[in-house]
């Protein structure tokens, strides 16, 4: 028996069946991913509820901002009122309902003195 670098080359005495190594590698990858996923902490219930409530609130807010713009309605801003020529113009551009809402409370409704007996 002659054993040297030329006769043996890079051959190894231990063999594996065809496809064994590829299958092993794929199995190792699957297990590594599964093990990582299993070790991730599940979100606690209250945190999931919090996320759901926050998401709904964000969706409602987005709808409130986007919907008037889609339906062609105008949004009156503080800047628009401040820049208008007069208060009369602003009031005349408002609907009856909007005017009624402004008129709903008068200064007379606001108590000027603290009444201890009427404390609720």
């Amino acid at each position: 028996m002659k054993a040297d670098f030329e006769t043996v080359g890079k051959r190894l005495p231990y063999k594996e069946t065809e496809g064994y190594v590829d299958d092993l590698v794929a199995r190792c990858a699957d297990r590594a991913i599964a093990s990582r996923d299993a070790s991730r902490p599940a979100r606690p219930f209250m945190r999931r509820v919090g996320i759901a409530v926050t998401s709904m609130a964000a969706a409602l807010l987005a709808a409130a901002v986007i919907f008037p713009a889609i339906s062609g309605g105008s949004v009156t801003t503080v800047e628009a009122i401040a820049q208008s020529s007069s208060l009369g113009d602003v009031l005349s551009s408002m609907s009856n309902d909007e005017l009624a809402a402004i008129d709903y409370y008068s200064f007379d409704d606001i108590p000027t003195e603290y009444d201890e007996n009427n404390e609720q």
Partner: protein
Amino acid sequence: MEQIDDEQLVAMLRSPIQRDRGYRLLLGKYGSRLYWHIRRIVVGHEDAEDVMQETAINILAGIDKFEQKSSLSTWVYRIATNEALRLLRRRTGFLQSIDSLGEVLVEKLEDEAGMDADAAEVLFQKALLQLPTQQRLAFNLRYYDEMPYEEIAKVTGKNVNTLKTNYHFAVNKIKNYLKEHSL
């Protein structure tokens, strides 16, 4: 298996959406080479499977820490080498060096190779298993994996001149062993 260059692989591994696919492609590309590298270090079939599994887990866990200071192949080889050496260290007794495992590994080789194994191939591996671990590592990575010394230095953490010396000594020792033991 789809072949893909390392730059694309790194981009996939950095993307949370493509990470798992990139990881599978990475193992598809280097997994077989890593397995045989591990097998040459630990010799045993089952040990090689265990180390391969640990290597796969550590690669996945370490993707975020991969800073591209070395190539992807160097990085995965380093993880595999460390895992294989860790297994050998677990096999040693208190204050025992892994260099002392030569005889244990030769016994394992004889069990694994079986009766119908090529005698010259077995003798060649026995010659390799007589080497100190650092020389064996340098020889394996240079001879079987055909790695440049600069890359081997990154895998093993040794400097290039030390590795060249290790390889030179390893080749001489293997030749002498084969001369002494060939019939």
